[in-house]
Every structure is written in C-alpha cells, then in structure tokens.
C-alpha cells in the first residue's frame, strides 16, 4: 500500500511537470518585444545626454507605464522621467517617437 503510494505520487509529480511542456507551447505571450523597442530607440540614443535626465510624454494612457519602464530599460544609464519639464523630451504620439530639445525649440 505504502509502496504504491510512493510510486503513484512520483508518477503524478512527473506527469505534472510534463503537462507544463504541453500547455506552455500554446500560450500566447502578450509581452513587449524588447528587441524591437531597442531598434526603435537606437537612432536617438547618440543624441541623449550621457548620464543626464530626459523627459517622456505619451498619448498612450493605457500602456504608458509599461512603455516608460521598457524605455528606461533600453536607454540606461540615461534617466527617463515621466514629465515634460526637461531640456530633452521623448515625445510619443500615435506610436511615433521623437526627441525634442525644448529649450531651443528645435525638433
């Protein structure tokens, strides 16, 4: 009886681990493609102040926080602040991003 319990327990544990392989293959991952985001910001990277702080404004209210976090991850060690009160501001409008130097009014 006890021996059977051990074997059944071990077999079901093994099946549980195997079940994950079958289910995980069909999962839909809604995560952001960070490689694509890195390519997206690569053109503006050389123009950012090294070690400085840059503002970020977006019209995407729903995903703004996540986009901000990913932008920060991509553009380290430049600090990205969710505010427009900076000399350099990354502006996102309908999915298009651009770097604006506000003090001089140059786009």
């Amino acid at each position: 009886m006890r021996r059977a319990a051990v074997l059944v327990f071990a077999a079901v544990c093994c099946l549980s681990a195997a079940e994950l392989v079958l289910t995980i293959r069909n999962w839909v991952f809604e995560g952001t493609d960070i490689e694509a985001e890195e390519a997206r910001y690569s053109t503006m990277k050389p123009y950012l102040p090294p070690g400085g702080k840059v503002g970020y404004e977006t019209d995407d209210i729903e995903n703004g926080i996540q986009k901000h976090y990913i932008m920060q991850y991509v553009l380290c060690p430049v600090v990205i602040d969710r505010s427009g009160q900076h000399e350099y501001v990354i502006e996102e409008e309908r999915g298009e991003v651009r770097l604006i130097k506000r003090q001089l009014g140059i786009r």
Partner: protein
Amino acid sequence: MITLIYSLLVSYGIGHAICSLIWPSAARTAYGRALAACVSFGIGTGVTSCMYFWWLALGAYRAGFAPYMIFEVLALLALSVAAHRTASPARDPEGGTAAKASGAFGSVLVALFVIAAAATVISFVIFASRVPHGEWDAYSIWNQHARFMSRQPELWTRMFDEALRWSHPDYPLMLPATVARCWMYAGAEYTFAAQCAAFLFMVAMTATASFAVSLVKGNLQGILCGLAILSANRLVLHSSSQYADIPLAYLIVASVSMYLVYCKAGDDRRLLPAAGLLAAIAAWTKNEGIAFFVIYAVALFIAESWRGRLKRAAVALAWFLCGSLPVILTLVYFKANFAPQNDIISFAGSALSGQDGGIAGRLLDPDRYAVITGSFIHYSYFGGFVGKAGIFIYLLAAGVAVSKGQAKGVAFISAVLAGMAGVYFLIYLLSPQGLGWYIFCSLSRLLAQLFPAFMVAFFIAARSADEILSYRKAEEVK
C-alpha cells in the same frame, strides 16, 4: 560566450573553495559532498556579487575591469590552496549503498525524476525564449539595475535617481551584480547571462533540497522531494521570468539545510558560519531576505538555548554572525550610502493614519484577516499535483516517521518558515496599499520563496521511501 562560462566557473570555484574550508569531515559523505557542491554555487555567486559591488562603490572601475578579473583569480587561487591544505578524506560513501539497495523500485523513481527534470528544462527553455529579457519585474527592476551597473560603471549611481523610485533602487544587489559581472566578463549584454543565472538558481534550488533530504532521510526520499519541487509548475515560471524570488528560495533552502547538516554532523560549529553566510546572501538578494536573516538568527539562538545552556546558544549565534559579517557589512554599506528608503518603511508613516482608520483600524478589521488568510491558502497552490493537496494524500498513505534528531531539523525549519509567513501576513495586514492588488502582485512569489524549504521539512517528517522499501523487503524475507 566562453568568457561568460569562465565568469561562472570563477564564481563557482570561489564558492567551492570557501565551502571546502568550512565543511566538516563528519559531513563529507556522498550526499554531504553533493550538498556542499550545491551550496557552493550560492556562496560563490553571493561573494562575487559583493566583490563586484565594492569594485563599483569604491571607484575601482577607473582602473578598468582587467585588474578586477585578476583580483578574482588571485582570490580563487588563495582560497583553493587554503582549502586543499585543510581538506580531509571523505567518509562512508552511503550514497552508493543506498542506490544499490533501492533496486528496481529506486530505478523507477530515478527514471521518473529524470523525465520530470527534462520536462522542466524544456518548459524553462520555451518560456525563456519567449521572454528573453524576463517578465515585468525583470526588465523594470533586476536587469535594469544590472544595466546601470555594467553599461557605464562611472554612471552606475544614476539608478538611485529620485525619478526612478518606481524601480525600487533600495532592493539589494546580489542578482543585478551577478548579471552585470557576467556581462562585464563577456564584454556584451547577452540575454543568455540572465537566463543562465535564472536556470542555475532553479537547478541549485531543486538539487539542494533533494540532497538535503537524501542526507537526512535517504536516497529515495531525496528523489521524491526533488520530484515534488519539479512538479510545482509555478516555480518554473517564476524562475524563467528572471525574478529574484527563486534565487531567494534557493538561498533559504540552502541556509536551513546547513542547520540539518549541523545536527547530522554532531553539532559541528564550522557549519554555522556557512549558514550565516548563506542567510546573509539571502538578505543581499531581496529585502525579504533581511527578515529571513533575523528570523534565522533568533530561531538558532532559541533552538540552541533549548538544547543546552545560554552560553552554548550565544556561541552558536556568534559563529553564525561571524560567517555573515562580510556580506552583512556590504548590505549595510549599500543601505546606508546608496539605497533610498524602502516603500514599506515609507508607508509605515502613513500606516499610522489613513482613510480606513489607520493602523488600529486595519488591525481590528476582521475582513482583512479573512482576505489575507484566504489568499495564503489560494496562493499556496503552485500548480501540479503537489499543490492540489497531493502531498497531504501522500502523507496519509506513507505516514509520519521522524527520529529525535530529524525532529530537531523539522522543528527548526518549521519555526523559520512560520516566522517568515507571519512577517508577510503582518505586512499585508498593516499596509495602507490596496489589499487585493498588493496580494495579487506579490503573494504567489512570496510563498514560492518558502516552498522548497517547506518541502524539505515535509519529506524529512514523512516516512521515507527507503524505509518503506526496506520494510517490504523484510516482509518478503519472512
């Protein structure tokens, strides 16, 4: 890629040399040495992450990374020579005899374990390939900090900028420093480095729990413990998400395993510095690890004073603290000089007052107790059969069989885990944050930190598979 592997080998070598220095001869059995090999990974990772932090904090990066690499190799050589001089021969190879004795029954369990391990590796690879930079917390906290610590070392303190409070810059740096160090060795930001670290922590966690149980309760029981951990699907997902909870779970199970070896090796005090070092590395991994370190120290003091005099407890605690000192000093220096105030401490002020009646209102609200208790039960399910009350069905069938020596270990682990669960409960109870959201975001991961250590205590308390098999053999002989 070769330099990346080299960096991991140097780190492991340092851990192994330190472990060899303090590992007593009484615990140099087959499983004892296997357990030492597993905890060496944690010690090596923790110590080298501290060294990397000091390289940044003291401004040694100005001299470049090459001197740091040379320093690590010299440290490895010095520790290896010292470990070689103090090495003592291995004792009885009980692992071989146990494996032989288990026969066909054991072979079936080993085969099931191998299948489960292979399935877990495949699941990890599939998940990690879909989220190569990890999930939300990985790229907004852990890997982001790693990028600050490696991209331009002279600008690493920018991660503490006020604008980045949302990325929890007060979190300890074991994991980011480990990943950043690998990237510095490799000379490139391979996502493979963070994935590899996550994978190794998961493997080390499972192996440590298995070997700890094998050492105390026999070969087959250790395999069962490993199977139970592998079947908990959520642990694999937390691991491949590159969060710090699985590294912390590994360090917790490694630390409590040291107490088991301590009891097994006839209270050899040399194991207490190892326990202290591992518990301190847990504190250097996540803020919850700080609570674990304190609870471990208190539990050790109480356990030792229970077994003897206060003087004996004080000596044990002193050995424990001695081992923890290098890492705890690093943590204190980090917290005092770089880390901003933790949000839970910031909330402590607002916890005294608030719309819901402040701290007294929350403490006296029975609904909060009910919600938190219900959530603890709900989130204790880690996926798979084990989570669905399977272990309790197993316990009913196999029964409880624990010797006096083993009971000490089980009581110690249970006390530490109960203390941790109590701390988590209290934080939820007092937090002014929205309770439902707070629990949804964190409780599953918090309980995952404790799950492997719970499994170790559980399988030591349950009647061992080896014992069940030997009973059956004795019946057959009759």
